[in-house]
């Protein structure tokens, strides 16, 4: 049940966007149409599911104090290793997709370079590290579930946002609020709505 809890919590309660503001830059920039939002959401979820467990293994068996060699603490290298893993992985996926599925590449490809600097990806890995230290995540399996949940939460948020923004085209928004201004306020209101999920447990 604990694993299910991690899953539910990472989608609804610790939602990447509403609770932690992760990935806000691409969230605001790419949420203008539902179609592109779906594409970016899928790409982010995929990269999260792969990089969180990868970084989990690296952190647990290489970087953590006493993990590699007794008495050696490499945890100060955490940031640089995490970002290198993410950048390398994104590059790899881009090359593979380009070679084997040009049609998928034309749909997804434009988002991939955006993802390496999407803070949701780095953020999930950093939270994973914190949860490992705090004893909340105890296995690779749970880290995969955490990555999947965080990704789905982000996906859900950006698609909902895009749907709302498509509708707001027909609204009379004050000139100064158009664009990012109203996007921030809508996100805030959605965040308040998501607060009803806090405290649920399975």
């Amino acid at each position, binding site marked *: 049940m604990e694993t299910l809890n991690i899953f539910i919590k990472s989608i609804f309660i610790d939602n990447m966007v509403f609770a932690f503001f992760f990935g806000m830059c691409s969230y605001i920039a790419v949420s203008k149409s539902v179609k592109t939002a779906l594409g970016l959401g899928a790409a982010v979820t995929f990269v999260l599911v792969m990089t969180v467990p990868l970084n989990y293994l690296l952190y647990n068996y290489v970087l953590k104090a006493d993990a590699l060699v007794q008495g050696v603490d490499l945890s100060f290298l955490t940031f640089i290793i995490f970002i290198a893993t993410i950048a390398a992985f994104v590059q790899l996926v881009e090359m593979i997709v380009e070679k084997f599925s040009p049609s998928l590449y034309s749909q997804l490809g434009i988002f991939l370079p955006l993802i390496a600097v999407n803070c949701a990806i780095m953020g999930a890995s950093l939270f994973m590290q914190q949860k490992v230290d705090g004893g909340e995540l105890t296995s690779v399996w749970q880290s995969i579930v955490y990555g999947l949940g965080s990704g789905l939460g982000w996906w859900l948020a950006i698609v909902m946002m895009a749907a709302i923004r498509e509708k707001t085209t027909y609204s009379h928004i004050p000139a100064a609020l158009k664009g990012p201004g109203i996007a921030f306020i809508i996100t805030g209101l959605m965040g*308040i709505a998501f607060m009803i999920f806090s405290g649920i447990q399975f």
Partner: protein
Amino acid sequence: MSNKNLKYLTGPFSANNPVIVQILGICSALAVTVQLKPAIVMALSVTAVTAFANLVMSLLRNGLPSRIRIIVQLVVIATLVILVDQVLKAFVYDVSKQLSVYVGLIITNCIVMGRVEAFALGNGPWASFLDGIGNGLGYGLILVVIAFFRELFGAGTLYGFRVIPESWYIAEGGFYSNNGLMLFPPMALILCGCIIWVHRSKNKDLQEK
């Protein structure tokens, strides 16, 4: 300081503000605005990283192989962030605990990467350094404004000092109560939206058609 250099420094404060005009670097920022103290430390950390990342990349720009440009940028930025993180952990431990993972997220803060790409690779070290400081401070300005409102209305304190007297509170027989919602993440977004609203009402050229 020449006029041109001064413009690099002060431009990002308002007309070219990284947060509310360029919409960069919101990710790692809003969560540290519950109180002024972590917001100021975060602003200073980002300023230091942006300034030095710009400086280093500007110095390296002539010898830089273009094929590995992005990864070199990431390595330089990550190194600077680790240094900042280590210094914070050693000297202001309680603040570094409050900032938690957000220090690490300076690496993926689009301001740093964005300024290196857009400015440092095409300009001299001194101008790049000033541009970095300017953008860091412009970002910090927004953080401080948001943190000011959130701490004042959410907790009745500023920088940890009590501003609204205890005797005003209902528990003490007064009439006032803190707005707990201010402490929750959504209010940071709504406040940021309001700042953009005010800012664009004053600067009509930034408004979207």
